[in-house]
């Protein structure tokens, strides 16, 4: 094959990867620039990261300008169009969270002249490069065409995060978090990898579209084979690690608590988004009932729905995840840990979208991911904007009476909790309602009931985090709380807090964007447009 022709054939695909390429370039620049002797150059790294991310958002329209004109081999051809900007957008805010935190001690040493510059002791460049790589991995996932891509992208998301946890902050707690995160992450990777192998064995292909067709063929004759089922189950369970869902969620409280706050915020969103995108892709191969696709011959093939065991497993995962997350959250005295449990619980809610499937389910997941990203970032941002004697805020005593000294952060924290609990009119509420709508579409009434009860239970601890800073009197610990030197975390908190409210106003457009991105091809009507009762 002529290389030029191959390139020409590839070009539509490459065009789709424009945002990722931008990030890649940015990451390389950041990594190199991090070694600069110039302090200002090093301090400009977060800014550079932001610019990179914003640039990648900016090229998203460009990437999809030739939308649908070529066969890109994508299962959900427009998924990236929503997922990429979403991930990059939240990542911009996540970048702001950590400004001034990474390398702070070393930089301080340099600044007061006690140490000489040593490129081996400076890690800021690495950190932001890893940051960008991880984000890039998450964005790449949306454009995955086969299992290899999927696997590599997931690993690209994960591997940098292991390091980020370890190097993003001070003390030994990040180390412990990192080791737990890494080892358990490796185990989960092995699990889904084995699942991929079985899936490959059963369907004969690594390409998602081919897998879809093979599974459809299987289910049309004898039903999806056992090997495929077990492979899928293992893949799902392995990915559950990324989304902190039962039974792979146990690491989350420890890691979130141990990780630096801004990295915890990162962990709460980027791997989770990646995991859900991967799960969406995997399950789209199996297909939900009420969904149909056009095969190569233009024949519409309707999905039979998830195989019973998988549907049942997802159902159980959803129920147990949200329940365990919420009841676990009740017992905590650490804000970060509570937010970790909240993260678990929210994954449980989002799994409802996976169970529900269909277009509405995926839309709901995307909307919920965005909402969750913004509101949990708001909470973590409010925490990371403050410190107590140079240490991160963690216990409830630290935030008690925060209003007195740091009213704005107190309000933003409360705002984020209100959104997390699903209080109207915040975006968390809209997302939750839409999730329930999706569940109704799939006649998953029991899940709605469980989720509703769980929302009420979760109110117990969200309310505590919201009320503590606003109402409780300042404690001895919270009197010592000061703002971090950088104003950016505060800015991020305000932006995210405001966004929880503003986004709900524009929830309609966000949702329609999400919906557009999940339609399989232009010709295929989604379940939303053509109602059909299961």
């Amino acid at each position, binding site marked *: 094959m002529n290389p030029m022709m191959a390139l020409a054939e590839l070009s539509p695909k490459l065009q789709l990867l424009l945002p990722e390429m931008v990030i890649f370039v940015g990451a390389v620049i950041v990594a190199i620039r991090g070694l600069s002797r110039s302090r200002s150059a090093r301090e400009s790294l977060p800014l550079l990261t932001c610019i990179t991310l914003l640039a990648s958002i900016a090229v998203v329209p460009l990437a999809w300008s030739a939308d649908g004109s070529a066969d890109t081999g994508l299962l959900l051809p427009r998924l990236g169009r929503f997922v990429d900007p979403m991930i990059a957008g939240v990542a911009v805010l996540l970048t702001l969270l950590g400004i001034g935190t990474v390398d702070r001690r070393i930089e301080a040493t340099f600044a007061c002249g006690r140490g000489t510059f040593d490129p081996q002791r400076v890690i800021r460049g690495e950190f932001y490069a890893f940051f960008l790589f991880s984000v890039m991995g998450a964005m790449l996932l949306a454009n995955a065409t086969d299992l290899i891509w999927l696997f590599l992208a997931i690993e690209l998301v994960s591997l940098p995060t292991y390091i980020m946890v370890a190097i993003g902050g001070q003390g030994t707690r990040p180390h412990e978090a990192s080791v737990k995160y890494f080892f*358990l992450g490796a185990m989960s990777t092995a699990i889904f990898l084995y699942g991929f192998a079985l899936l490959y064995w059963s369907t004969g292909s690594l390409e998602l579209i081919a897998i879809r067709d093979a599974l459809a063929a299987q289910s049309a004759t004898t039903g999806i084979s056992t090997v495929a089922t077990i492979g899928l*189950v293992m893949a799902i*369970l392995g990915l559950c690690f990324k989304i902190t869902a039962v039974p792979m969620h146990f690491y989350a409280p*420890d890691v979130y608590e141990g990780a630096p706050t801004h990295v915890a915020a990162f962990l709460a969103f980027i791997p989770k988004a990646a995991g859900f995108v991967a799960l969406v892709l995997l399950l789209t191969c199996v297909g939900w009932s009420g969904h149909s696709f056009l095969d190569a011959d233009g024949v519409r093939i309707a999905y039979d729905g998830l195989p*019973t*065991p998988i549907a049942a497993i997802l159902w159980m995962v959803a129920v147990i995840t949200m329940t365990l997350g919420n009841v676990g959250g009740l017992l905590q005295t650490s804000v970060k840990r509570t937010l970790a449990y909240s993260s678990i619980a929210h994954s449980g809610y989002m799994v409802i979208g996976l169970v529900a499937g269909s277009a509405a389910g995926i839309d709901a997941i995307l909307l919920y991911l965005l909402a969750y990203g913004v509101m949990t970032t708001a909470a973590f941002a409010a925490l990371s904007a403050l410190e107590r004697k140079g240490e991160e805020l963690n216990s409830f005593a630290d935030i008690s009476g925060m209003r007195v000294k740091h009213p704005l952060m107190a309000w933003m924290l409360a705002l984020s909790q209100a959104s997390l609990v699903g209080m109207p009119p915040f975006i968390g509420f809209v997302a939750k309602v839409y999730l329930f709508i999706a569940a109704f579409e799939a006649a998953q009434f029991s899940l709605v009931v469980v989720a509703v009860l769980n929302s009420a239970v979760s109110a117990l601890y969200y309310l505590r985090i919201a009320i503590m800073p606003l109402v409780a009197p300042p404690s001895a610990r919270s009197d010592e709380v000061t703002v971090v030197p950088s104003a950016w975390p505060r800015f991020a908190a305000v932006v995210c807090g405001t966004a929880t409210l503003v986004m709900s106003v524009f929830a309609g457009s966000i949702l329609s964007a999400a919906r557009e991105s999940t339609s399989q091809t232009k010709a295929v009507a989604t379940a939303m447009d053509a109602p059909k009762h299961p």
Partner: protein
Amino acid sequence: MTTLLASIPRAMNAPELSWLGVVILLPLAASVVCALCGALKCRTKLPAFVTIVALGASFALVLKAYFEYTGPVEVPIFEWINFHWGSGGKFQSFVADCALYIDSLTLFWMLFVTGLGTVITIYASEYMEADTGAGYSRFFFGISIFLFSMSALVMGDNLVMLYLGWEGVGLASYLLVGYDYHRPSAVAAAKKAFIVNRIGDLGLALGIFMLWTNYGTVRYDELFAAMNAGGRSEIDWDISVIPFLLMLGAFGKSAQFPLFVWLPDAMEGPTPVSALIHAATMVTAGVYLIARMFPFFELHQDALATVAWIGTGTALLAATIGMMQYDIKRVFAYSTISQLGYMFMGLGVGTTFGACYHTFTHAFFKALLFLTAGAVMHGFAGQLDLRKISGLRHIPGWRLVSWTMFVGCLWLAAVPFTAAFYSKDAILLTALSSDRWDFVLLGWVGLFTAALTAYYTFRVWFRVCAGPVKYEMGSDGGHDSHAAGDPHAHAAHPHAPRWCIKGVLLFLTIGAIASGIPSYRQVLTHAPNWVQEMIALSSAADGAGLPHDGGSASVPMLGETGGPHHATVLGMDAHTGLAIVGSCASIGGILVAFYFHLRSRRSADSLAAWLRSRRLVGWIPDAMEHKWYVDEIYHGMFRMPMWIGAQILSLGDKHFLDGAIVDGIGRLPIVVGKLFRPLYSGVLQGYAVTMAGGVGLILAWVMWVWMRGFN
């Protein structure tokens, strides 16, 4: 039981008579002025004058209406509670407008209500003068509100208007009984009056609902029309229960057994209030209600009998209690209950005429008695114990009070040729000449009660007005706060009443005497009794004793040939016999009182001591003095168990329902959370085992499902 069914004339719609609304409006306007006076801290007698003028004008208007009266009319004023649904048919609307129903019964009642109201207000303007200022305004505000409510009660064209007035007079009673609010006893009495009345009101309200659900209307005219149209024949459970419910309301307002307990306590109010509200007018609202709704009391054969029994029983009970009271006002209060018992007995045995006539006469003489008692109280700094005042008529300046009280006592004792004699006679005659043996029995009980009445009435008079001059001044304001600021409060000598009080006493004496005129005319000229005529034209016509279109007279006609031909009393012609027996009873009672309380006062004490020493009857005097322990029984039977129950509920609400159940459910998630806590041990391998175990379990489950075959 009367079987006689009068056809009640339909009312004409007369919007042109809307000036009658002014009768109600005037007291309301007066109340507003009084309230303003209070708010503006007026220190003059302006509130009293305004009230007097307003009430006088009301009375004048009622008089005008009386003279122009031609037949029942309905006067619409404005729409109050009024709405329709569906097609808006008979059972698809609720119409209780602010409108007036004017028939002779209304006018009869309004005449003495507004008349006595005016007069007693004049009395009060002097009586309350020590309180000039906020209290004065408040008092006359209460009086105005009362007159407003009473007018609404009597003149309203439907039962909801009646209910409005009914509750309104209760409110006025509450405010006025509790006038002297810094005394806990007054506050308690006011509260008790309102709450006990509310129990009766419940019956009334339910009766109204029952009428409405069965007849589709609460307007008198339509209700009567339904009755005329044969509504009485459809006797089923919920219709026959109507009179009993209404009766409960009447018993509450008119202080009949078992709801009479509030009235004696209500004497905590200023005396003009006792005279106006708790003797002359408000307490007769029950009589009015039954008279007004008389046809409905014929719906159930036992309804009127129940009224009669309760009335007679209350009359006797109250009389026995009244015999042993030492507080003058309380004696009069029990006499009021007793006399109201007579009225109910009259209603029950079927003579609305007798009942209304007795209401009429009673209003005058009982108001008179109360006002004399008030004068005593006013002069003696709140002293009301009849053991501590004696020989009043010999004290200068008190002669008029003594003699007007004497007149009042004579009337109350129903000595022959007094108005009360005739009115009581009308009731007892009907009872004694009834076909029913139980009514005859009730009649005799009534006669016996009459003797008791005469005794305890003159016990007061002989003790207080006659005998040697001897008195102790009251300790302080006593029952009326007004005396607190009175310059004479702690004076050693009583101060005699001035012209306002005296004039009113005189006027009421004349009124009491004059209230007998209809009977005198009847006896002397055989002209129809005025009251009887008034009643006969109203919805209570069945018991008026005059022949009417609907049937033949089976009720004795007073003054005709001496009663029905078949009825006899002690073998004599019923009328004559009753006159003789009744005279004997009252005079006998007076003589006994004379002996024990004037001639040989010590013998009364020795008799009581002797009685007390007997084992069998020793408890009776104490029981009588303590009102037969009715309050205590109520307290023990109802209030206490309910209070204990309420305490238990209160604690249960706090500790069980909220503490155990709600908080327990709230803790449930925390408990569940604690169950799973060991899984988050913080040990890496622990997590790995749990995760791998979870995955293994799920895979095992999938395999198991696979073994069983998918689906």
